[in-house]
């Protein structure tokens, strides 16, 4: 009985695994075959449905060296914005989290409650006023519109505060007696003690920015400045039939992120777990 049960269990697990990765696997294999071959094996179930008969890198070359759709530029743009946002999110929100966790100041409770109440305000409600704000600041079509409003992470403050609270007060006292200033204590003692949650928040922020679609679609009009997700969506509707290239572009924008994830997944998943349990 238990052998049957475990057989059933593993069968289900494997089916779920196949469903999870087949689309990605198929995207990568489709991107590495000539267009003529892409649909040739689609009506049969044999190995060539997933394994290219004549593997080629031509689609990737076409996409990367395309004048009209410079995918490396889009990836560069997105890398630039996402990296800056990630660094700033970590710095700015860690500072606040530190103040909320370890410093005493009047109004702390009220200010913290204000931050937490912002969690229930969905970005969709403030979409129009934020767009108008960018319009008034003259930031439309510039990366300021993507970077500056994204620097705040209320969730990040919430997450890091839990960790900073666990740093023993005695260490901070000792640093104070040794004459270290508060910013110095923060940089040298508190931040190094919180590397795992910082990696977590950094990864979440980076992936979130890599994935962001609606906001860049609204505030960036210049094609050359566009972010990768908007570019991919536009590319796939413009080149409607050239599926090999569409798959190549999708693969180029996905594989680097998957690799980063595979290396750092422990932290990323840990971060999600923490946000879930505390919720």
């Amino acid at each position, binding site marked *: 009985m238990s052998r049957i049960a475990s057989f059933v269990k593993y069968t289900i*697990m494997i089916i779920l695994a196949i469903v*999870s990765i087949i689309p990605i696997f198929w995207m990568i294999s489709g991107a590495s075959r000539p267009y003529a071959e892409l649909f040739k094996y689609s009506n049969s179930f044999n190995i060539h449905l997933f394994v290219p008969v004549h593997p080629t890198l031509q689609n990737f070359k076409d996409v990367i060296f395309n004048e009209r759709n410079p995918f490396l530029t889009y990836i560069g743009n997105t890398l630039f914005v996402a990296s800056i946002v990630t660094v700033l999110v970590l710095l700015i929100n860690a500072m*606040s989290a530190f103040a909320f966790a370890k410093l005493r*100041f009047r109004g702390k409770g009220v200010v913290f409650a204000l931050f937490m109440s912002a969690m229930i305000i969905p970005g969709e409600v403030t979409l129009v006023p*934020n767009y108008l704000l960018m319009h008034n600041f003259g930031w439309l079509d510039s990366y300021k519109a993507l970077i500056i409003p994204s620097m705040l992470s209320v969730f990040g403050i919430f997450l890091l505060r839990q960790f900073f609270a666990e740093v023993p007060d005695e260490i901070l006292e000792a640093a104070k007696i040794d004459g270290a200033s508060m910013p110095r204590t923060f940089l040298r003692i508190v931040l190094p003690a919180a590397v795992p949650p910082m990696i977590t928040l950094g990864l979440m922020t980076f992936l979130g920015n890599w994935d962001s679609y*609606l906001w860049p679609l609204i505030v960036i009009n210049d094609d050359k400045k566009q972010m990768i997700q908007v570019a991919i969506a536009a590319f796939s509707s413009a080149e409607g039939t050239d599926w090999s290239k569409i798959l190549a572009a999708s693969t180029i924008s996905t594989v680097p992120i*998957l690799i980063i*994830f595979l290396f750092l997944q422990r932290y990323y998943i840990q971060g999600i777990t923490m946000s879930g349990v505390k919720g």
Partner: protein
Amino acid sequence: MNGEEMTAWWFVLPSFALLMIFVFYPMLQAFIISFQNYNLVGGTRSFVGLDNYRTLMTDQSFLASLRHSFYFAIIVIPIQTSISLGMALLIQKKVATTGLFRTIYFIPVVVSTAVAATVFKLIYNKEYGLLNNFLELLHLPTTNFLSNPDTAMNGVIMLGMWKAVGFFMIIFLAGLNNIPQDLYEAAKVDGASKIQQFFRITLPLLNRTTAFVVIITTIDAIKISGLVFVLTNGGPNGATETAVFYIYQMAFKQMQMGYGTAAAFILFAIVLVISLVQMRLFRNQDY
């Protein structure tokens, strides 16, 4: 103000300024704009009182977009929650293979919305798509989910679940790991079956986690937009226009900023009420 207090304020100031400028001030603005007829192109702006809200109540495409969002939520909440809980149970026991399966199940979460939607567009294709290929193999009728108004939303739903179950699986996994093992030991001694253990121990003790998952799923489902933008662009025939998609169309395509913002406020009110009700429901079941 003493030194520590000064330092604390300097530490909080950058994020506090961002909070005020990009969250609370826009929220206030949104409230004001929702009572205005605000056209960005014409530069016209006039106070119209509750007109936007009144018109929205009878606006058939807005009501339809809300219905689509709700349909998405009602289908997704039970199915996605059960699948992700099932997945968590499958990989809960720590053996060599579970780490691998956990990683595989989580990969769709990392794939970006635009890429996932683009690839699924092709997977759903009637002639060449992987899905229909598979249906044919099982001698089931083939269909192009996305070009039929009756099934297009289901196509969006399947993609949405494919992308999200891994995320909630991880949250359930965290919840499962918090249940003390000796409860199961005791139940086993008392002769409780696996099924009894699940309903008497696992499910009740997962209450808080389940509440979190259901609330987040509901909010995400009602605010669904990204998938729709790329996968169907609201079509066919408006069948997959969701509330956020409608707000975007009104505010940024038709440039009716006031009208779009009023719609956003209605959506916000709905989301708020639903999550408050859910929180209350789950709290009452506390043990």
